[in-house]
């Protein structure tokens, strides 16, 4: 029942997007925004599986974003891979990386976990910078990423890429939603709230956390694939700590406890970023000040506040 309803919402959202494209919002700016929204929304949504559900604050989530982008880009540059096959291979590579890093990190908690994930991210970043023959070093993966047409989808066309990005985001959102609703999701929440009690009732803290880590990393890899398609390359900054920081900020803005909070935060962050960049050269000063006011003013994510307010009103009603 839950799956059918989520899938219905996702289909409705896809229909709304396609409808918007057809009724005249087909401006290039809108299409670009949609691609970036799908990319960063997926990154933030995947990170929130760790932060919001499992209670694991990862500072190194951009490692998987970068891994997805580089793996996909390198495979496509060989000219031997179709896009779907390269996406699957890139996701497999990202999942493997997340499995190895996660196995070492999830035994720790709180600040130790956060810093170890950050350390692994910076390790990957250093590898990207140093392995110039493979990655292009600090100049990034050059030469463009070929985008052969598959199933009539031409990702070299921005409208197709936007629709593909939204499709990936919605499918991922439905899957992640099912993960949260499943017994596995309930176990993660229990581990977040009281890991000792969960261990006493027989749950393997290590296995559950590792599984969540791998799932989150894999979806971040898909976000990286979308990013590499958008910029037709891959760059070391994808795997830099600032990318992880931005994803955390999007979650904080939109809300941790509501499933769609990261998507709302992504939309706010991107709109503020685009608006301020067009208005002033003192981007950091203005964006920082606005975000500070929002965070200090609300003290929670926007959707957290709205949902809490709505529930409070509902309870008051006779």
């Amino acid at each position: 029942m839950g799956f059918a309803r989520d899938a219905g919402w996702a289909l409705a959202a896809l229909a709304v997007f396609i409808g918007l494209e057809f009724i005249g919002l087909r401006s290039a700016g809108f299409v670009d925004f949609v691609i970036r929204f799908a990319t960063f929304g997926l990154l933030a949504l995947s990170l929130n599986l760790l932060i919001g559900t499992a209670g694991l604050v990862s500072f190194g989530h951009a490692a998987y974003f970068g891994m997805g982008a580089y793996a996909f880009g390198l495979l496509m540059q060989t000219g031997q891979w179709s896009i779907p096959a390269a996406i699957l291979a890139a996701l497999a590579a990202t999942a493997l990386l997340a499995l190895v890093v996660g196995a070492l990190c999830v035994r720790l908690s709180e600040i130790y976990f956060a810093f170890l994930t950050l350390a692994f991210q910076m390790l990957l970043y250093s590898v990207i910078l140093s392995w110039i023959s493979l990655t292009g070093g600090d100049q990034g993966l050059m030469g463009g990423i070929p985008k052969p047409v598959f199933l009539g989808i031409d990702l070299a066309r921005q409208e197709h890429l936007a629709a593909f990005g939204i499709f990936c985001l919605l499918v991922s959102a439905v899957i992640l939603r099912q993960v949260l609703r499943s017994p596995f999701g309930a176990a993660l929440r229990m581990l977040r709230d009281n890991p000792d009690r969960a261990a006493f009732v027989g749950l393997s803290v290590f296995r559950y956390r590792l599984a969540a880590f791998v799932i989150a990393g894999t979806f971040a890899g898909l976000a990286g694939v979308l990013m590499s398609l958008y910029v037709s390359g891959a760059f070391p900054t994808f795997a830099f700590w600032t990318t992880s920081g931005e994803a955390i900020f999007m979650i904080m803005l939109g809300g941790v406890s509501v499933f769609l909070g990261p998507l709302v935060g992504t939309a706010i962050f991107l709109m503020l970023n685009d608006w301020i960049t067009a208005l002033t050269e003192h981007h950091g000063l203005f964006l920082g000040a606005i975000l500070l006011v929002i965070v200090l003013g609300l003290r929670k994510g926007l959707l957290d506040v709205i949902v809490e307010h709505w529930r409070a009103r509902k309870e008051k009603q006779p």
Partner: protein
Amino acid sequence: MSDSTKAGLRRRGLLGAAGATAAITGFPRLGFTQPRQPIKVGVPTILSGRVAQLGISSRNAMQIEVDAFNAAGGLDGRPIELVVRDSRGTPAEAARLAREMITSEGCEFLLDAEASGGGFAVHEVVRETGTVTLHINSETSSLTADPRQRFWNAFRVARQGVHDSIAGGHYAAQVARQRNLRRWMTISPDYAYGRDTTAEFVEFARSFNSDIQVTGETWPRLFQPDYTENITRLSQGRPQAIYSCLWAGDLVTFVEQASIFGLFAQSQFFAVNMADYTTLQQVRNLPRGVHSGNRYLKNFPDVPGNLAFANEYNRRFNVFPTNWSWQAATGVRLLTTALRQVGGTDPRAVAAKLKGMTIESPFGAEGSVTMRAEDQTLVGYAIGWGTTVSQDPFVENMQKADWAMILRLEAEWKRAKGWG
């Protein structure tokens, strides 16, 4: 109730009448007095952070040239409007801005003023969109030397790493022969530009003078604040000469710290990026006798046009131009010349005109620069090496590099890379 309705109707009627009057009388007049549609040129660049000077000095120089073009009537009355945006040095943001400029803001051309990373991101965007783009800051040789990177609408209006390395290698080999400098060490930033440029310099210096031996190297991180460890390593190696491609603030910091340790008293120092006002004027006690390639100097080339450019820039912005400034100015001059010759903004026609174009330039080695047709990169710009003095003009005894030699060795280098 009825009164208010009547009043509302009266108001609406009045507004309608006013609108109709404006439409009949005003709009045609607006049509006559409106200036012609500007030619929008997008400039993705870096205006914040540690290399903000790159974007600021590029934008300033472009503005001088664009103002001159517009004051002279533009393109049949169409002025150029620069749309400058800050990417903060992030490639993904540079790509987004470039795309947005082209698709949403109606920019017909791009003057890409990004550093190499962002420049390559913009390169991939315009490969897809077919927008005529002039890269004005990326010095990475492969941007145009590698045939896979070339396409019809992308041009480089910047000095190129391999050109500097050939000129520097030749100069260093001569000095080494005269002063019998055999033991060399290098200190360069630990990233692609630092490693590539150093390797190319050493390769060419040794090809001119096989006595040169590199006995050690040290690679500080980009933006490293303390060079004690690197200076100690250089001091212990006791080289007769040191090469560096550190740049801007990093070079200033290193030179100041190395002076305290007396490093330049024991070794000749060759710094390809020293002769730029952002560096020369910031070193507190500029050591005498540091060998440097020209980045930008108002007296090299020593021609009135160059001095006039520097003085105008200084008058408007209270600082002297940088290497990025002359490149940006040259980019605008090439683009505006092509626009005038084409008499329009058709991208294919403008690109065809740019290909192989030679313009008079105060920044040229012989009074002109050329957009070489075969790889769409700038050649013929002034390259020279000299030695520093502590006061203005800061660098003396400039020796002009021989472009015939540069072109010959560049062709050999390309063939060796498989790019010939």
